[in-house]
């Protein structure tokens, strides 16, 4: 069965088995290694990608399940040299230390901004990060970054 989907705005038709995990197809076949595998047990969120605009765990998704979908990975957020507002906010708020959890945090942050809008508060953000783990425990700055990123992107996410 041939699987096709939109990946970062372009058509992708990987040849991996339809039952392969999306994260492995992204990393191994398509060479997009920005999406990380932190746990493989659906708990850490390092593998989050956007599927039809909503964050989902690509380690818990089979390739066949994204047939026809619109998938965006961390590599697809910036426009040329212009970072996505959520990426820029992570940079400016020093929302990362080693950076391993960051792609997933940025995707979760985009989801939070979409669900709650630009005025979302820190308590809501902290709560909604329940599916993302940072081993460097930089949560304070991650929450700050998502707050700033949500405010900056409020217009374009509406």
């Amino acid at each position, binding site marked *: 069965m041939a699987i096709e989907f939109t990946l970062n705005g372009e058509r992708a038709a990987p040849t991996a088995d339809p039952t392969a995990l999306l994260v492995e197809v992204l990393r191994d076949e398509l060479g997009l290694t920005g999406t990380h595998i932190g746990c493989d047990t659906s708990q850490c*969120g390092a593998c989050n990608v956007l599927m039809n605009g909503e964050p*989902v*765990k690509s380690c818990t998704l*089979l390739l066949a*399940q994204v047939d026809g979908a619109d998938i965006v990975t961390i590599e697809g957020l910036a426009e040329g040299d212009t970072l996505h507002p959520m990426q820029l906010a992570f940079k400016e708020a020093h929302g990362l230390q080693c950076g391993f959890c960051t792609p997933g945090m940025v995707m979760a942050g985009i*989801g939070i901004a979409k*669900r709650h809008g630009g005025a979302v508060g820190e308590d809501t953000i902290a709560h909604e990060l329940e599916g993302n783990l940072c081993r460097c425990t930089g949560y304070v700055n991650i929450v700050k970054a998502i707050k700033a990123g949500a405010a900056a992107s409020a217009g374009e996410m509406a």
Partner: protein
Amino acid sequence: MTYYRPRTAAEAVELTTSGADPAYLAGGHTLIPAMKARLRDPDRLIDVSGLDELRGMQHADGRLWIGALTRHADVARGADVFPALQTMASMIGDPQVRNRGTLGGSLANNDPAADYPAAVLALDALVETDRAVHGAADFFQGMFFTALEDGELIRRVGFRIPRRAAYAKFRHPASRYALAGVFVAELEEGWRVAVTGAGGEGVFRWSEAEAALGAGQNARDVPPPDAAAMSSDIHAGADYRAHLCTVMLKQAVGDLS
């Protein structure tokens, strides 16, 4: 492992009649982790996620009927959904899990710490499948076991609309599954209290708590369930789980709406 994408529910059911260990795939948020942990190794994956006949929400006969493919995020935000069920759905897993996980998938698996079984039992729900309608009391048959036959496919679930209800759970900090979750509902004929996460046999009705609330007793005074009937693991011992039931009961009663 062969992947199938049937176009109708009838075709999906037909696909389960051959193959050594066929499995339905909806959101995949129970099945895929189980496969990764080598707890399941199906030879046929039958993807039902495209079947529109398993979607939708409607009110009928004092019940809210929710299609099996409805995601937790859709129940949490559903304008037609009463508050206690919205709240329960908003507490499942995390936002990413709620964007994929489905009602039918959760029930078919009957994980002893899943949230939906408590709502189904407390709200005296009906589970409608391709071949039967199961009452909540008969549906759950001990952890990971249900009344579903091989190949039986859940179509929709009818929750009774309670006068008041609430759900409270104490989460495992990493998995977000319930160490103890208590769903309290006031129906016309009285109170129903269902507990998930704590029982040694999976979800159960806490009849002593139901009787106490029915007698107008304060939730604070309800003694814990028998610890001998609770589960025990590295995350929480049986005594602690029994105690958590009382704390979650108080919290749920305080949150009734």
